């Protein structure tokens, strides 16, 4: 195995790995979700809201997949191959070293992409779907917003320009995604300290999904929590996590769940006092417009 990793690897191997991950990711997740449901049932915590919320999670997944296939499938893959063949500074060989490097950089790209999704109006309009569940289980990992598949390209395309073969990039993205999916559980408490120090864990990711004030905009990491520790966005799980977003949407209607972020974004654009302010709502952090309007109100009262 080590020999394979350290020498040139057949492109077909990466393709096979990526296909395997793609095919089995959902099946493995469903198995774990079934296990979670069993534990919840045994603990007599099962309720209709949890069932409705979980069903909605999978419906948003189909909405996301539908939109992704319609608008992105060919564009997404073509963009990576165009960047790799026409814009790259080199073309790195298909080796285990390349894969290892690509996973690290794809994870770093995921950190920034994730931070972008939380700290811009357009990002949050789509990503809020994932965070709006008051529950926290594997099915929440499949709760996607309308353009969750579009924005990450901005952060991952540079990898192709650095010379990573798109196949390796897609495989790395799949590995980060698989790892991320497995973090959505309340069943696993804390892991041994060295693991908690380096890797993202269910505990760290519960914090990320928390609406407690001290947990807001923390723990963006995919696989390595060291990115959050390094960039000052880390928070430890101490207080019991309250899941969901402010304000809570209190609905299990998949249509409302899927589009509520964009309803709110367009609502904010209408509230804006100027065209430039309406445009800035897309790129400024969520809540920016409210603070702007409040400041203006205070100014007008004091004048």
């Amino acid at each position: 195995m080590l020999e394979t990793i350290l020498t040139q690897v057949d492109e077909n191997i990466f393709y096979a790995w990526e296909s395997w991950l793609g095919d089995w990711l959902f099946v493995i997740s469903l198995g774990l979700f079934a296990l979670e449901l069993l534990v919840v049932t045994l603990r007599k915590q099962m309720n209709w809201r949890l069932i409705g919320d979980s069903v909605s999670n999978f419906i948003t997944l189909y909405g996301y997949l539908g939109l992704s296939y319609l608008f992105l499938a060919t564009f997404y893959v073509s963009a990576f191959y165009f960047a790799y063949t026409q814009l790259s500074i080199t073309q790195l060989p298909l080796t285990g070293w390349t894969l290892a490097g690509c996973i690290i950089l794809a994870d770093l790209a995921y950190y920034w992409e994730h931070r972008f999704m939380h700290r811009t109006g357009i990002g949050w309009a789509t990503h809020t779907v994932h965070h709006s569940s008051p529950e926290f289980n594997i099915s929440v990992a499949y709760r996607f917003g309308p353009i969750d598949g579009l924005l990450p390209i901005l952060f991952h395309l540079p990898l192709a320009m650095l010379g990573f073969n798109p196949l390796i990039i897609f495989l790395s993205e799949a590995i980060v995604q698989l790892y991320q999916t497995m973090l959505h559980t309340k069943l696993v408490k804390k892991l041994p300290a060295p693991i908690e120090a380096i890797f993202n864990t269910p505990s760290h990711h519960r914090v990320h999904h928390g609406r407690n004030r001290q947990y807001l905009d923390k723990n963006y990491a995919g696989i390595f929590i060291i990115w959050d520790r390094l960039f000052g966005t880390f928070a430890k799980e101490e207080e019991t996590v309250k899941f969901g977003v402010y304000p809570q949407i209190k609905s299990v209607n998949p249509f409302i769940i899927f589009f509520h972020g964009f309803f709110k974004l367009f609502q904010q654009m209408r509230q804006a006092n100027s065209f430039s302010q309406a445009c800035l709502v897309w790129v400024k952090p969520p809540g920016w417009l409210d603070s702007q309007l409040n400041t203006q109100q205070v100014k007008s009262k004091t004048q």
Partner: protein
Amino acid sequence: MKMPLSLAVTALIVGVVWSTVWAQQIMPSSTATAAMPSAKIETQPAAQTVSKPLSNVSQQSKAIVSLSLVGISSLSNYESAEQTAQKLFSKFTESTNFVNQLKDIEQINIYLVYRAVNNKQLQISAAVETKNLKKSHFESIGLAAGDYQPLAKKGSNTQQLINAWQHLDKQRMFKIVLENYRLDNQGNFIDGYSFVNYQ
């Protein structure tokens, strides 16, 4: 951490990881230890230094989709490229494994892949397509897709393959030069072609 500093640290991490990966590709790879029975193929591979009289290639560029190859590689100086390529070529074609495989097929394509490591060294590989040969004695040779321009057209003879090296654009350093040798099942050279992928 402030945003500008965070971005600077990110750029630094990207630089370190990328450099590490890039450094791995220029490390010399080991040659395979294939058995060497009596010489079956007398065809001499063409490999000359790039410091030859040059002229621009006017033919239209053509992209090659990635080839899956297996073979053997060695690091070489430009000055000794020809000898290294010949050594690899004969080691490769003289292996028992290869000769046995030849009995079952009508013809086979051998490739010589020259990768520029820097302005002093080349990594040279002799390889065939994976479907034609058991992989046990050989390593995989990755050949990325890219903009490959023809140096010698299909159907070229040995002399034309050798002359093709003179058509390299001296102003541009190449990434890869790929030579194809088509052989029959007696090991006789039929024809070949070559491509270049510039930096």
